[in-house]
């Protein structure tokens, strides 16, 4: 990807924090984001190391076995933490760009050992950035446990778990400037943020990204603009208006949302600057009493020289391009137009906006653009993007929750 700086150095992001501080959640979100914008990124954790270690009893969840009195578990966790670090090194030595580490990092000596390991084993240029999550709000911690840990407890109770955390907290050492490391501290999910010695393009981006994270599980609705005049003629691209049928469908989508949103007017509502997007959004917006923000970032992919042609015409005029597109649909760029990678880049500010929003989000846009947005929440590889199905007259509802994204689709008749 020429668009983003292929960094000259590898980047290691290390997560620090007591259990139930959202480290895993942060690492998942960051990892998803970094892969989406084109970097090869992976997470290395105790859980991951355990899954790769065939000799261990996979019925015990070592990530959660934090009992400070159980010497055997302590040793296993230390071993797994070390294995994860080694797997990280191998990954970066080969094809990896960015690695996230979620292991044992709670004391200064743990961190020192980790730094030494990286220095010793990695023989290429790398940068380490530390991400600490601090929380002293008991309600937030409880929510965290309920949402992401409870289902994995076999015999433990929440009280046992929180007591074990309290014991661990006694030995916990927060990041300090004297450790000479570059870091960000997220306190109480973004209520306060401290950044120290921030350097580099990628770290700046990561900090901007982290500033927007929060723990509200709000819904995100993705809707395609309705049937347009070009649809009827089977043409792609252009800036056509809605057909009569398209206007009807927009009305029905509006009705669906009236029920769905139940009068809530605090909606983050976006659409593109294309006529069919604006018209669909206006009709839906009128029903809900809200106005959409129009942004060119959500405009449909630029079809370049193929704009306004039917698929048959393209196949006849530009057979070479059709072949190229079949071979590599993700990176194929329409001559004088865009590729999916260009669209991802273009749509990135919208992702920031969606992430930042604590209210429900409604996006009215177009096929290629929505594929990219959808992929951010749902796909593990951007190579899947060209194959994503975004049908017309269908509302896709995404609810990102810790580690997953719930999805439901409603076809509007």
């Amino acid at each position, binding site marked *: 990807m*020429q*668009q983003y*700086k292929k960094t000259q150095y590898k980047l290691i992001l290390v997560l620090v924090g007591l259990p139930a501080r959202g480290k895993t959640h942060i690492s998942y979100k960051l990892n998803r984001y970094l892969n989406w914008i084109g970097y090869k990124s992976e997470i290395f954790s105790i859980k991951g190391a355990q899954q790769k270690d065939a000799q261990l009893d996979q019925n015990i969840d070592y990530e959660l076995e934090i009992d400070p009195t159980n010497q055997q578990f302590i040793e296993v966790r230390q071993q797994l933490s070390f294995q994860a670090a080694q797997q990280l090194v191998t990954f970066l030595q080969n094809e990896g760009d960015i690695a996230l580490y979620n292991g044992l990092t709670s004391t200064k000596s743990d961190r020192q050992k980790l730094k030494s390991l990286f220095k010793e084993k990695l023989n290429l240029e790398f940068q380490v950035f530390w991400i600490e999550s601090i929380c002293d709000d008991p309600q937030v911690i409880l929510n965290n446990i309920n949402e992401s840990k409870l289902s994995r407890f076999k015999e433990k109770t929440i009280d046992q778990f929180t007591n074990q955390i309290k014991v661990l907290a006694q030995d916990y050492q927060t990041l300090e*400037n004297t450790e000479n490391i570059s870091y960000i501290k997220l306190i109480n999910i973004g*209520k*306060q*943020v*401290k*950044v*120290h*010695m*921030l350097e580099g*393009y990628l770290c*700046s981006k990561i*900090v*901007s990204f982290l*500033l*927007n994270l929060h723990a509200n599980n709000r819904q995100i609705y993705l809707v395609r603009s309705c049937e347009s005049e070009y649809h009827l003629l089977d043409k792609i691209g252009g*800036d056509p208006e809605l057909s009569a049928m398209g206007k009807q469908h927009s009305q029905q989508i509006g009705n669906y949302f009236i029920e769905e949103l139940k009068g809530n007017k605090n909606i983050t509502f976006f659409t593109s600057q294309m006529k069919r997007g604006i018209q669909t959004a206006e009709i839906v917006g009128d029903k809900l009493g809200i106005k959409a*923000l*129009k*942004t*060119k*970032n959500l405009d449909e992919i630029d079809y370049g020289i193929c704009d306004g042609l039917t698929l048959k015409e393209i196949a006849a005029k530009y057979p070479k391009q059709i072949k190229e597109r079949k071979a590599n649909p993700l990176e194929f760029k329409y001559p*004088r137009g*865009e590729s999916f990678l*260009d669209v991802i*880049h273009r749509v990135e*500010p919208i992702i920031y*906006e969606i992430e*930042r929003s604590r209210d429900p989000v409604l996006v009215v846009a177009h096929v290629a653009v929505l594929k990219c947005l959808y992929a951010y929440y749902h796909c593990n590889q951007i190579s899947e993007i060209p194959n994503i199905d975004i049908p017309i007259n269908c509302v896709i509802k995404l609810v990102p929750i810790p580690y997953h994204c719930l999805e439901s689709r409603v076809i509007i008749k």
Partner: protein
Amino acid sequence: MQQCNRSQKIAICTVGLPARGKTYISRKLNRYFNWLGYKSRVFINGNYRREICGTECNSQFFDPQNEEAQKARSDCAKMALQDLIQFLQNGGDVGILDGTNITKERRHQIENDLKSSFNGIQTLWIESICNDSKVIQNNIRLTKINNPDYCNVNPEQATIDFLNRIKMYEQIYQTITDDENLSYIKTMNVGADIIVHQVYGFLLSKIVSFIMNLHTYPRPIYLSRHGESQYNVDDRVGGDSDLSELGEMYAEKLADFFYSEFPTKEIKNQIIFFTSTMRRAVHTSDVVAQKLEIQPLQLKTLDEINVGICDGMTYTEIAQKFPNDFQERKINKLGYRYPRGESYLDLISRIEPVIFEIERSRQPVMIIAHQAILRCLYAYFHQNEIPEVPTLDIPLHCVIKLTPAAYFCDEKRVLINPQTGEISIKEEYVQEFVRSKSKQKSFIDL
């Protein structure tokens, strides 16, 4: 994304001892907001004080025990705040209060006044802390000595007096604490440490990112258009034509010029080199890249303005085929959007990430791009008014070297003759202070 939340009014207040970069931050933010299309203005406490109390104020004026002077200063500060509130009430979007505001009492008063003036106003406090005496001395040297307060004083005396002034402030300085319940950003030692507290919202989040990337390293920015293209020769707009023969010659001479500008390999490897994805720019950049042995980054963001349906036409053809559009564009070149294409305003929005990147960089930046794009970039750094953007002069075969400094931007134009390689240099030095002295009495912003 100018379209977001225009209804929200924002007031930003600085906090900090003198010579901590508050005015620098205020002006940078002001520039950034105006650039994005928001109506923004800076209200400088110091300017109000100068207008009303005169400029012959030595450090005794700032003694916290000097009651008369204290009252005068307090009144001036109130006036600045009132003007800011009025500005927001009369269509302004962002008001920036540039002052020391170093006591809890003062901040509490200002916060209350602001919150009670508007429903839903967002306030943000930016405290700049610096303990590095070298940085402070440098700040004083670069910005205070030429300050109107010291126009009749020699530089050594001015520095001594100014350091005394700072001591006066230090006696009563109270850093922002969490119990004041303010949304704040603290930046320490020029961004080495940053604390963000309770900052929510679209614009405020953008401000945080922007501030994290600010620095005062005087690094040069080189802007050049691609060499003459085939379409330039035919006088056509748009397209993705390649270089003409003359253009190719320019590419060679440009490479020679940059080769001499960056003598050592170390410097060369640190250059941040951007170009667009269009043939004429890529071709020019490749020639330069080969000579310098560095790699350019091709950004679609730097592609020339999209002229939509007018792509490939000459201006005469456009005038004939689309006379209405041709007229519209003449009247409002800034906002006019080519059908299925872009407007200058779209361009400004489009290149925002590149502006960020350039701001962030502490190494020399080289950009080989296109006329409309460079007009936008040039205008941002040179602090031109937005309506001027579409008419700025960015000729072919010319390298513009900008060196942004604290309150102004140094400019040098290097015209390179593509056939002979002959270089002629035009030095244009724009001093903000000089400009403002000749302006009418205006203590609102520089």
